[in-house]
């Protein structure tokens, strides 16, 4: 099936036209379904656009006023700082754990591998809302099994301890939740990448007397590196955009302790009905995210350049 779209354009080996036909559906899709709405969102961020304007459709153009409002709000900058911290902590934890899990899966026997892979997929398949609710319960002050267990272990100060009322604890629980949900994808992808490393390479390296770490650093990692970088950058994007978990669990609270940029944008847009400010916040988010990933792009292109 996947070969079908490429059959016709390539039959005569005319690479001049073929590639363009192959990417045409993707390009058209992105233009109409993504770039066009994005353009409208950009427009909204330059207008006075609230519920009234959404209904009536006669928004007034206000230039950069929304951006001024946004950037002069000290709370916004707190949120930006928190977003970066949240992203860094999550991504580091996800990548380290996922690599370890992927290496582990590779070394397991057939049955063990199936069990681990299945449980990873199961995690991934649990609806986000259900998973978030379960985490909320585990850490519930009066009814949660975490406090129950800690109290049983003799740590009486945890009797009725209110995890989600403490900013840092709430932040940590959200990190745990997001890492728990993200590791399966990263681990499975990295494992898939590991399986494409030809066994012969390991054997020859071993003959050269390479140890485990050297083997990983000089054989495995360079080969899975493109995919590793890819997963890394995807995780950067996803944690930067984490929303549902936070919204369901804490709504950004207590106080602002778990408010990161997307939560802030939705608070302003959907709850406050300041669609204009919400759009502006999202534009800034995209800009900041590109800043983080610019390094990745540069590296991506250097590789591409080698191949070209």
């Amino acid at each position, binding site marked *: 099936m*996947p*070969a079908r779209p*490429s059959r016709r354009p390539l*039959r005569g080996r005319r*690479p*001049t036209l*073929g*590639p363009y036909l*192959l*990417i045409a559906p993707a390009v058209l*899709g*992105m233009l109409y*379904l*993504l770039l*066009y709405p*994005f353009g*409208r969102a950009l427009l909204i961020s330059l207008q006075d656009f609230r519920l009234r304007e*959404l209904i009536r459709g006669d928004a007034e153009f206000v230039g950069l006023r929304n951006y001024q409002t946004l950037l002069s709000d000290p709370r916004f900058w707190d949120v930006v700082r928190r977003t970066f911290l949240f992203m860094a902590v999550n991504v580091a934890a996800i990548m380290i*754990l996922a690599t*370890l*899990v992927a290496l*582990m899966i590779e*070394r*397991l026997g057939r049955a063990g591998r199936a069990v*681990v892979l299945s*449980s990873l*997929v*199961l995690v991934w398949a*649990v*609806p*986000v*809302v*259900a998973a978030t*609710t379960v985490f909320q319960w*585990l850490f*519930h002050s009066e009814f949660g*099994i975490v406090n129950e267990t800690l109290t049983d272990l003799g740590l009486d100060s945890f009797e009725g301890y209110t995890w989600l009322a403490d900013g840092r604890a709430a932040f940590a629980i959200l990190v745990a939740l997001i890492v*728990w949900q993200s590791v*399966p*994808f990263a681990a499975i*992808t990295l494992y898939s*990448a590991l399986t494409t490393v030809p*066994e012969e390479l390991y054997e020859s390296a071993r003959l050269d007397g390479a140890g485990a*770490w050297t083997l990983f650093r000089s054989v495995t990692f360079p080969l899975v590196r*493109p*995919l590793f970088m890819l997963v890394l*950058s995807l995780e950067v*994007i996803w944690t930067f*955009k984490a929303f549902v978990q936070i919204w369901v669990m804490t709504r950004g609270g207590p106080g602002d302790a778990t408010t990161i940029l*997307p939560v802030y944008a*939705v608070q302003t*847009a959907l709850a406050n009905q300041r*669609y204009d400010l*919400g*759009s502006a916040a*999202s*534009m800034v988010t*995209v800009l900041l*995210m590109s800043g983080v*990933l610019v390094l990745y792009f540069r590296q991506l292109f250097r590789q591409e350049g080698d191949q070209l």
Partner: protein
Amino acid sequence: MTPTRTTRTARKARTTAPRRALRRLPLRAAATLTVVICLFPVYWMLATAFRPSRDIQSYDPRLIPQEWTLDHFRTAVQADGFALFWRNSVLVTLGAVLLALIVALGAAYAVARLRWRGRRQFMLAVFIAQMAPWESLIIPVYIISRDTNMLDRLPTLTLVYFMITLPFTVVVLRGFIAGIPPELEEAAQVDGCTRVGAFRRIAFPLLAPGLMATSLFGFITAWNEFTYANFLIIKQQDSRTLPVWLSSFQTTFGTDWGATMAASTLFALPALVVFLALQRHVTSGLTAGGVKG
């Protein structure tokens, strides 16, 4: 960090066969730990689904329910429109995933294997598309759908989910295709295969895990999506999807969590089924590729 040590020991274990069994012990321990951490919250969801309502949150939470009940599953299955919303979700999700897979495979192949001008720009665009702030695009998407009379229609959702999953699918597939040495295909072409034939016989089997991972991702993303489904399907109650339906267990007196968890369990099943269906292809793909013994 026990896993670190484990993997290293395991590495040695492969080289020194006699001590193998003993050496594999830490590896097994690490695997068990992974499975337990993965499954505990899932178990808790299941246990909740089978617990009588009054035991769901108690001052004395128990690991294993004292009493078991199927009431919540009954509530979930008998709720209005269960089958209908199920069908809607399956159609929308599968439609979006297949569309994305087909479109992405073409694009990924073009990027990874062919040389053409504008390739970098295209890849950059796809990558940037990943960052699309979908939470904020909902208003423009709504306005556009309204003005083109596409509100209240499932195909609108299919298209949105297609677009949400497409960039990711292209990027990951490109990674997988690029990871397969082109020499393999070239060798096959020398043996008389066409370019397409070479791709299909040599690269495609190796690509199976990638296809699995990407389609699963798309499936789960689309399957879980709530905001767009809630915002774009307005008057046609019959066109609602499962995530929107899931919220129907929330009442003015709070949420019927037992039913929610039972529904979530039923809701997670398709993803698992898709995985199990694809796993056979992964295994066969791996052995066919001769990559792994």
